[in-house]
């Protein structure tokens, strides 16, 4: 069988003295779209941060593209969207400048060429932000910030896309745009691992859902139905929809 793109076996990790991952097994194969679900504090964010090397594992094994994490250097194959609410920092920056940072996975310390600038434009077109390329990121809405952060990851033309809560604080219109962008990436052959709070408009794209509870995998299989989210083990999400009658209409539109 083909080597999985991500292979996590018996992974344990702690934040401070608190164990957050307690033996997680996770394999993501080429072309798969895997959603990592679970309640707050279940370890889903720590799991993806461990995969990209931002949280050290205290035990277990991690391989990326068949290479042990310690020896893995090929970061241009990985696109990462960290959990953020803003793409801004202490100094003004344009959308182009922020997204161009993603291209460093390819250029490293070298110069920027025409192909690099084209990749940045293409990534912004994919998330529907090409018309805002010269705008300051400070002028963007929450959903647009998230679209810029995703474009930044796409600018490096990665084979594997890892996203930590890309839909948090994103308005419905932006969610639809992101679902479309992701669909195009998947059609291109990309592999995706993403942390989600709820499946939302991405549901039809997702091949497999892995549910964590207290740092352990409690479900690994087909994604649960949108209407049956409450049946998910460990799912304590309280639906915010004030009108229960709106629920079936919403899922009907999106699935």
């Amino acid at each position, binding site marked *: 069988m083909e080597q999985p793109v991500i292979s996590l076996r018996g992974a344990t990790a702690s934040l401070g003295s608190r164990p957050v991952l307690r033996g997680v097994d996770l394999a993501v194969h080429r072309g798969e779209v895997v959603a990592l679900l679970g309640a*707050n504090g279940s370890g889903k964010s720590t799991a993806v941060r461990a995969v*990209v*090397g*931002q949280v050290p594992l205290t035990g277990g094994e991690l391989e990326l593209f068949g290479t042990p994490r310690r020896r893995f*250097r*090929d*970061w*241009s194959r*990985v696109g*990462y969207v*960290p959990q*953020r609410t803003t793409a801004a*920092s*202490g*100094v*003004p*920056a*344009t959308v*182009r*400048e*922020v997204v*161009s*940072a*993603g291209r*460093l*996975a390819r*250029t*490293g*310390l070298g110069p*920027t060429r025409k192909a690099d600038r084209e990749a940045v434009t293409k990534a912004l077109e994919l998330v529907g932000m090409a018309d805002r390329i*010269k*705008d*300051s990121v400070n*002028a963007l*809405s*929450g*959903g*647009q910030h998230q679209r810029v952060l995703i474009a*930044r990851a796409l600018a*490096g033309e990665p084979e594997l896309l890892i996203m930590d809560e890309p839909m*948090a*604080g*994103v*308005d*419905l*219109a*932006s969610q639809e745009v992101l679902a479309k962008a992701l669909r195009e990436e998947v059609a291109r052959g990309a592999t995706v691992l993403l942390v989600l*709070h709820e499946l939302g408009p991405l549901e039809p794209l997702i091949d497999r859902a892995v549910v964590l509870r207290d740092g352990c995998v409690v479900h690994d299989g087909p994604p649960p139905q949108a209407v049956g989210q409450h049946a998910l083990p460990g799912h304590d*999400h*309280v639906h*915010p929809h004030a009108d229960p009658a709106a629920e079936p209409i919403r899922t009907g539109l999106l699935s």
Partner: protein
Amino acid sequence: MDILELAFMQRALLAAFLVGVTAPAIGIYLVQRRQALMGDGIGHVALTGVGLGFLLNTSPVWVATAVCVVGAVVMELIRSYGKTRGDIALAMLFYGGMAGGVMLMSLSSSGSNANLTTYLFGSITTVSQQDIVAICILATFVILTTVGLRRQLFAICQDEEFARVTGLPVRLLNLLVAVTAAVTVTVAMRVVGLLLVSALMVIPVAASQQIARSFATTFAMAVAVGVLVTVSGTVTSYYVDVPSGATIVLLAIGVFVVLTMIATPLAKRRAETAAAAERCTLEETPAGPATDDVQV
């Protein structure tokens, strides 16, 4: 222009120009990662280097550079390893550096209170031939780093975690930022003084970001503001007998106030244009996504 015929003023103006370029050039990265006061910390540590230079009877600029680099690297390591009481460790470093400088200065035969004051508050007209050579070499290093690696330094200061996942040598680049900041402090110490160094790293950047929308424009404007205030401040201090460091910093604050006043109507007009362009879209409904994540 008799001012340009005097050798000490030629040196002073060259030093002022180089400080005007280098301090905002590294300062923008410190402001970007919200470490605006790091220059101030390095300035305190530099005083130990100056004292040591006097005690050893060597060039205070080079010894201060060495001590600053060590201090800045220690600060960067404390920052990146995020020890729980990092602020206390930094405070020790700052005040230890200050006290060490005063102590070493008083122990040396050539050091005096007058000498201490010239390093604390700057004394641009006493810049020697030897100093100007050191300043030129160090300034070249700062400019090459901050301009040549601008995309990489932008990325690590914008979002360090993301930069690490792109495979950039983030730890090395962070140390480079710290070392470059340390070098800049010693470049600027003769011109504005160790206590006012940080002002030139922060205020021109703060002033230009009132108007600029991109990082590149902020960078260019900050350097322009830096050069404007250091050179005009030096000329002012020649004609009117006032200290150069204080004049430069007050001029920088003046530029900041003026640009802020220009920026307010400008920002209003931009907001109106943006609102007109975005009318009738679903984007501007902040209540929508906020309620979507409600937890009970």
